[in-house]
């Protein structure tokens, strides 16, 4: 018991919708959903209040579909700056108790409370956090308390909103094993389907399998699943200042209107590359590869990648490589709806380079110096202070601050 870990998982309930209702009391007690704008073609439900949920509104539904489920549904546009603000304020409450706080997206966090008893037990801290978030931010959280990250997360899903669930070593078999296997983190649709094919439907059935069998089915992830189901997962909660190593830097957007020709695609790629190049500089990295992701009008998608002859941070080189890939690989059977461009195979910017005989290095140096100046001007006078002529006019790109949103990245293992 003494050596047992104490992990909390705090989940802010219907986060976007709750923030909206906290900011505007007239929305309280009504079915509310936060949705993207139909004009910008993001017209889907991003979050919904409890009442909207009861009426059958689901995240990801198209706006008109949601309205059909619930006639009185109030649709509000997202305010990402507010969500970021309240996410940060909630983190500050967590930091009062521990610096081992690992965020999972904007609204979820793991906290490690192992070995600290100064302020009380895990359950007492969970209660203190729940109360503080409610009183100070006017929002509710549900918290799971357990001895590993997986069960803590399961616990936070069990009772909602504004509730605490403990899954102890003594009780987990009773509480967790009857749950459907799909409730486990990282058991998505495909894994659920495959497990069902083998007759495995609950977490308990998964836990009872031979790990070797799971390894044969799912590789290394099979072993992980078995550990998750048995409560033997030992992954750490990372320190709040931990930043996971960057493997790629990308930027993508769904356009306001479909892109009908190559020039339009190039412009969007070039604009996106400005941001990719900037972030490469900020992180002092350079890219040896480029990857593009193209979603067509019919929502099907394709992904292509290539290697660059020389490592680069230059937006022009990244976008040119992406554009060439697009020209060579994309068959124009459908107009393009969304474009993502990503710098891959990242290395430190100062790493030694093998120069190529086929590249005009003097010219390249001049381009790098030009980009240095562009970056400096933008740093001093703002992102829009200096831009390319080709990027003027309507690029069919929305600009509503969505870029700043933090999406859940894989949990630290």
């Amino acid at each position: 018991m003494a050596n047992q870990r104490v992990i909390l998982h705090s989940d802010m309930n219907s986060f976007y919708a709750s923030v909206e209702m906290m900011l505007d009391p007239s929305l309280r007690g009504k079915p509310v959903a936060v949705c993207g704008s139909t004009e910008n073609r993001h017209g889907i439900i991003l979050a919904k209040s409890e009442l909207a949920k009861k009426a059958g509104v689901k995240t990801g539904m198209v706006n008109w579909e949601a309205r059909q489920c619930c006639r009185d549904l109030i649709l509000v546009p997202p305010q990402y700056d507010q969500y970021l603000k309240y996410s940060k304020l909630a983190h500050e409450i967590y930091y009062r108790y521990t610096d081992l706080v690992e965020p999972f997206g904007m609204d979820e966090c793991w906290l490690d409370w192992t070995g600290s008893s100064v302020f009380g037990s895990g359950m007492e801290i969970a209660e203190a956090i729940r109360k503080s978030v409610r009183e100070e931010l006017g929002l509710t959280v549900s918290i799971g308390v357990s001895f590993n990250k997986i069960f803590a997360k399961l616990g936070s899903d069990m009772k909602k909103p504004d509730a605490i669930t403990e899954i102890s070593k003594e009780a987990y078999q009773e509480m967790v094993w009857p749950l459907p296997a799909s409730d486990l983190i990282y058991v998505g649709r495909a894994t659920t389907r495959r497990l069902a094919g083998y007759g495995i439907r609950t977490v308990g059935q998964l836990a009872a399998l031979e790990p070797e069998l799971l390894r044969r089915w799912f590789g290394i992830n099979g072993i992980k699943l078995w550990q998750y189901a048995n409560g033997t997962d030992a992954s750490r909660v990372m320190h709040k200042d931990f930043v996971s190593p960057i493997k790629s830097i990308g930027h993508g957007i769904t356009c306001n209107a479909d892109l009908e020709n190559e020039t339009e695609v190039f412009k969007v790629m070039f604009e996106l590359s400005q941001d990719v190049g900037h972030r490469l500089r900020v992180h002092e990295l350079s890219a040896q590869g480029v990857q593009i992701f193209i979603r067509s009008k019919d929502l099907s998608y394709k992904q292509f990648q290539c290697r660059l002859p020389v490592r680069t941070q230059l937006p022009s080189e990244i976008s040119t490589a992406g554009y060439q890939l697009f020209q060579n690989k994309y068959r124009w059977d459908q107009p393009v709806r969304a474009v993502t461009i990503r710098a891959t195979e990242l290395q430190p910017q100062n790493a030694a380079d093998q120069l190529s005989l086929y590249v005009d290095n003097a010219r390249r140096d001049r381009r790098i110096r030009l980009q240095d100046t562009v970056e400096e001007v933008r740093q001093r006078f703002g992102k829009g202070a200096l831009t390319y002529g080709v990027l003027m006019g309507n690029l069919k790109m929305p600009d509503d601050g969505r870029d700043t949103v933090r999406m859940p990245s894989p949990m630290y293992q």
Partner: protein
Amino acid sequence: MEKHDLRRKVFVDVIVQHRKTGEKKPLYIIFEDGRQYEIDKLCACRRAAASKVGGTGIRYTIRVRGQETFLFEDEDLWFVEAKNLHA
């Protein structure tokens, strides 16, 4: 619900004393129409949600003319949960 409707979020001018200890002490509240109220006493100060009008901030519990009320500061803007007569 009706209770919420009675109050309105009203942003106000505030005369603040910035102490050498880093604390802020609001002294006067001035409404848009020029009415000025002296803050007789600062009773408490903590972060809290303004549940009646929405939003959150640093909540100062103050006494004005013998009545206890709240004054909020959020990102350098000050507001009160005003009764509709001040709207």
